[in-house]
């Protein structure tokens, strides 16, 4: 190789690498694995749900008494309650968009269903519109500043949902919007519905009037516990870390029906920590 290029390469390779690189890499691998599993599980469970629905229709048509019986089985009855209302993908020069939007049905509370479905679709549509505008502007700016339009990397927008808890009493699901540009950023919206009353559940409903104290104590304890692992770095309260939960802190219900409060990326620690979730024990 050309001797000057050798020198340039040596200078390039002499760039110092920070000590925490391998920790950061490992954390990112864990996060990537987690997202990958989630994608696969959601796909698989959706396939199962579709397969069950197919049988369902077949048997219902075949036997009226079976149809009667099946409505008494909570799990099968539950299948009808949340479904994908919109699914589409756009793939062009400006953006790659992948959307799977949920909607509710058969909750027994029509008004609530309409309200929630309306809210999900307006909220997500405005998020997608804004993301599309940003994508277009970014591309125009790229081309205007001399970038070759052929090499522009499209913005990736991914909307998906995950059902967290579904039983006779509760229905809890999280809708996420991920936009990958400078760095991946995920916004999420949680929905928790009490199927008996037809209302959205609050942490106060689950934990009583002292819910804030209860949650704060348990989160602080779990942070202290997780901080024992040297791979976890939480900011201290003075550094802007955990300050107590907000009135509108997002949460969802896990499979056992326990509330899980969620803190966004950067809220409690550096970006490498990702978003943080804490299961809160209720008194019962």
């Amino acid at each position, binding site marked *: 190789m050309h001797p000057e290029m050798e020198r*340039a390469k040596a200078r390039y390779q002499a*760039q110092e690498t920070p000590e925490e690189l391998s920790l950061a890499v490992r954390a990112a*691998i864990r996060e*990537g694995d987690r997202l*990958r599993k989630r994608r696969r599980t959601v796909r698989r469970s959706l396939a199962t749900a579709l397969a069950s629905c197919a049988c369902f229709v077949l048997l219902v048509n075949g036997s009226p008494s079976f149809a009667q019986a099946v409505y008494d089985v909570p799990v099968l009855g539950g299948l009808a309650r949340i479904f994908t209302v919109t699914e589409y993908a756009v793939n062009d020069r400006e953006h790659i968009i992948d959307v799977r939007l949920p909607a509710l049905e058969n909750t027994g509370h029509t008004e609530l269903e309409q309200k929630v479905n309306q809210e999900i679709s307006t909220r997500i549509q405005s998020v997608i519109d804004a993301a599309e505008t940003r994508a277009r502007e970014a591309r125009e700016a790229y081309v205007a500043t001399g970038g070759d339009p052929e090499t522009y990397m499209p913005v990736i927008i991914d909307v998906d949902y995950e059902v967290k808890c579904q039983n006779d009493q509760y229905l809890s699901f999280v809708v996420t919007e991920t936009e990958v540009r400078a760095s*991946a950023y995920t916004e999420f919206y949680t929905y928790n519905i009490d199927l008996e009353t037809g209302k959205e559940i609050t942490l106060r409903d689950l934990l009583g009037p002292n819910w804030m104290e209860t949650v704060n104590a348990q989160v602080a304890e779990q942070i202290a516990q997780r901080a024992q692992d040297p791979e976890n770095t939480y900011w201290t309260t003075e550094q802007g870390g955990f300050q107590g939960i907000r009135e509108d802190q997002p949460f969802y219900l896990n499979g056992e029906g326990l509330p899980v409060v969620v803190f966004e990326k950067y809220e409690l620690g550096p970006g490498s920590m990702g978003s943080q979730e804490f299961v809160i024990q209720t008194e019962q």
Partner: protein
Amino acid sequence: MRQNAPDNRQLLVEHIVNGQTEFYRLAMSYVKNRDAALDVVQEAIVKALSKVDTVREPAYLKTWFYRILINEAMNHFRRNRNLVSLEEVMADRAEEGRDPGERLDLYDAIERLSLPEQTVIKLRYFEDLKLEEIAQATGTNLNTVKSRLYKAIRRLKDMTGEEIDYAP
């Protein structure tokens, strides 16, 4: 494809772990900031792993990961273009005031190329990628890579007086 999935994941993780220093340096050479470079590397890893099941051919994993990494670095660079620290501005001013007859060091000259040209030079000479691999890693065709490399070498010669071999 299902059968290959776990192998691809394993191959990708090995590739990332073994190459982490190189990936960090490449990111750093674009974003020029330690924390930003760490962020770029992390985001690239998260994105690559979560989408690894979409890669059919294990042979493409290497260039595929470069593509994601460069993409992340470019996006970061673009997004923060308007946020330049005072130090950088002062350094640039000093740079402008230099004697036009004076020759630039080759490394400094590379930094003055356009981003796509920089990418071709860095991948070719610093990361030792083949031209076909560069085409895959940048999502362009081979002819674009060739002409870009040729132009970059000419510009480097203007700035440094050094004659770099087209394909050493």
